[in-house]
């Protein structure tokens, strides 16, 4: 088993290295940061000097090697745009993204499961059908459009909620939180709905179809035959057995919520890492782009690794296959 884990960790590290290499080979196509860093009145000499100073005149493999050399020591370089260490900027921006992802995740899970169960139990009801058709919106409308629609409805027309930003934040030992102020909580509502809507519909549809599957099973019929109440049958017996695949999907979607926050953050000017990344692309801020991409890939690779290891525990067949050696 140890050998299996070591092998998976080794594979994950290799994936990370390849992601970094691909990222660095692509940076040249994003553009040239030099023109953004120098003003209108620069000379060709200035351009060459700065390029050499930043090491941009070297092949991308060398640039990548230098980045890795710094990264293993925890040094991700200095942002071209802000002139500050990238690690510092990322730490400053991370709470905004994580809080948003957390709230959207919780909303998506709660409403997803509740609506999924409801539509499964009342599969022929009018309300259930309305919810099911309405959920198509969540799947088919692009995130930025939903965000803009929500802003126009709740900020411009009704004036209930702020149109952008995070509101007032409170600093708790380096972690800026929006949970403790009224404006911070208000500011969370629209972005978290926008970000969580897709995941919510996904979970809802998954729960519904699993639930319909389970409700046809013999043991449910027997449970009903035993005279159990509907509530006990639906929640204690049926829902519990639908949760296994649902939990797997939720785990995988967790990473997606953080990674897809880019669009939501841009629409709501939410000061998280996603917005930072978009700004970095516009400015060709290579150190920030590199650090962000590595961070996201570490996250995805980490989640996958965890899932793989969990499978190993859950599924005995996997163990037999790997340790058999015949």
């Amino acid at each position: 088993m140890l050998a299996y884990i070591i092998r998976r960790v080794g594979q994950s590290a290799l994936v990370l290295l390849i992601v970094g290499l691909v990222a660095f080979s692509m940076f040249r196509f994003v553009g040239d940061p030099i023109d953004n860093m120098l003003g209108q009145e620069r000379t060709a000499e200035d351009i060459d000097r700065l390029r050499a100073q930043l090491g941009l005149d070297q092949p991308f493999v060398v640039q990548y090697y230098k980045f890795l050399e710094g990264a293993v020591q925890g040094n991700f370089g200095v942002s071209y745009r802000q002139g500050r260490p990238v690690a510092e900027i990322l730490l400053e921006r991370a709470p905004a993204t994580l809080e948003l992802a957390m709230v959207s995740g919780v909303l998506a899970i709660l409403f997803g499961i509740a609506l999924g169960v409801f539509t499964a139990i009342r599969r022929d009801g009018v309300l259930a059908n309305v919810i099911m058709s309405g959920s198509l919106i969540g799947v088919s409308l692009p995130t930025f459009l939903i965000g803009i629609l929500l802003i126009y409805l709740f900020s411009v027309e009704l004036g209930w909620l702020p149109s952008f930003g995070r509101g007032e934040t409170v600093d708790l030992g380096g972690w800026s939180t929006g949970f403790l102020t009224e404006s911070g909580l208000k500011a969370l509502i629209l972005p978290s709905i926008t970000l969580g809507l897709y995941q919510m519909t996904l979970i809802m549809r998954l729960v519904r179809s699993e639930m319909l599957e389970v409700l046809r099973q013999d043991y449910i019929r027997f449970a009903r035959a035993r005279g159990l109440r509907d509530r006990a049958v639906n929640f204690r017996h049926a829902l519990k057995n639908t949760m296994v695949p649902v939990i797997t999907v939720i785990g995988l979607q967790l990473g997606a919520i953080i990674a897809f926050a880019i669009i939501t953050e841009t629409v709501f000017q939410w000061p998280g890492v996603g917005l930072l990344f978009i700004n970095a692309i516009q400015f060709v801020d290579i150190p920030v782009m590199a650090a962000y991409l590595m961070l996201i890939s570490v996250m995805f690779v980490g989640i996958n690794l965890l899932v793989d290891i969990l499978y190993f525990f859950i599924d005995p067949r996997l163990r037999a296959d790997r340790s058999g050696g015949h």
Partner: protein
Amino acid sequence: MRRLLRLAAVIAAFAPAVQAEEFTWAVNTDPQTMDPHAVNSAPVLGFLNNVYEGLVRRGKDMTVEPALATSWEPIGNGEGWRFTLRQGVTFHDGAEFTAQDVLFSYQRASDEVSDTRSWFAPVSDVVVVDDYTVDFMTTAPNPIFPGSIANWMIMDSGWAEANNAALPDKENGNYATLNTNGTGAFRVTAREPGLRTVLEPFDSWWDEAEHNITRAELTPIQNPATALAALLSGDVDFINPVPIQDVARLKENSDVDVIQGIEARVIMLGFPHEAETLKYSSETTDANPFADVRVRQAVAHAINVPAILQTIMRGNAEEVSQLVSAAMQGYVPALAERPAHDPDRARALLTEAGYPDGFSFGFKCTNNRYLNDEAVCQAITGMLAQVGITATLDAMPVQNYWPELRADNYDMFLLGWSPGTFDAEHPIRFLAATPNEELRVGSWNFGGYSNARVDELLPMIQSEIDPVARQAMIDETTKILQDEMAYVPMYVQPLVWGVRSNIELTQRPDDFFILRWVTVN
């Protein structure tokens, strides 16, 4: 009755004399640094104009007016300029402003690592005469020098040295990247890059305050639709810019005013004057038609600029015939007429030049640099096709664009130019002079346009003290550039600001937002 009066008097006594006026504004680009010498870009200098000050400043109509210097006069026969400094000015931290700070700021801003170095190319030496007199010696007479340093901001030498910020550090940043200490009307009380910057009025400012702001906050909002929503919902009081397609809708809203003006930026087409052959032609592979002035004239006559302005710019821009707009110093009113839209004339010119059937070529364009740039380029491509020249349009983000132009990968390109000095000499120096690294001219003349008379006139324009003689030289240069169709200037980009109707402010053509002209009603 007396009781009532007494009550009214009590209430009046408790009411604050001056109401707290908070002002929030959103821009699409956050100033990337607070260091006034590190980056020479409009978002940075425009913002810092509220915090730092120069020896001179520009007024509401762009005229040069006294700021930290009370007066200035030429030395001798144009050997330099003598500035008399204002007395009793203090920096935000309380330090006194003296000639030492001017000398220090000159050294800091003209250092090799500073982005503002080119402003001081004509300066040979700076001499502190006494605490309140400074001489700037120039290599040649320089009539426009005071105006050309309006954005050069004075930093306190003691503060900079104490905080290890004696030179700007663009690559790694330093104390001055995040902190400020100017003499301006506002001081920065909080700075969170990319998130918000808070300003409060500086109580000991030397000049009389016209504004009534007690606190101001700048927020970058990149997404235009979000910025518009923030303005409409009242979350912000002012946004810059307003998307052109939303102008008509905003004008109907009584809570919001749209303030329009003409920016300094001229949008033009450029050509590969030096190239031997076209790079992206399918049939004309052994010649460069654009080297022929008749072909360039044909391009000018083929493009229907009024139609572009009416449809794509929705009537918000103005035609231009020169490299500077009419608001700039040195504009030539006599040469204001653009080549008329005349497809027949264009075809005749092409035939004359030996291309009766036209030719095909590659047209490079940006898609995120100028207002509706890609749409404009598509329109131009269509108009050129009508006279028989087929452009293959390649529109790309500006981050990729300049490297392509530097590598000469184009047959025709789009360029916008905003003269930093507000003088016609600026585009001549950067766009029309033969590129010369040593003389520091022609650094944006990608096509390598070269005219001996223009090269001869440029240093004369730069050093001519007599305004009439100087204007005559600019007239001559402008005429040459028009006759040779070195570039095809098309229109001046509009400035569109959106503001809540309870706010009064002043829009300056350089797109700088000056907080001290804001009144909240």
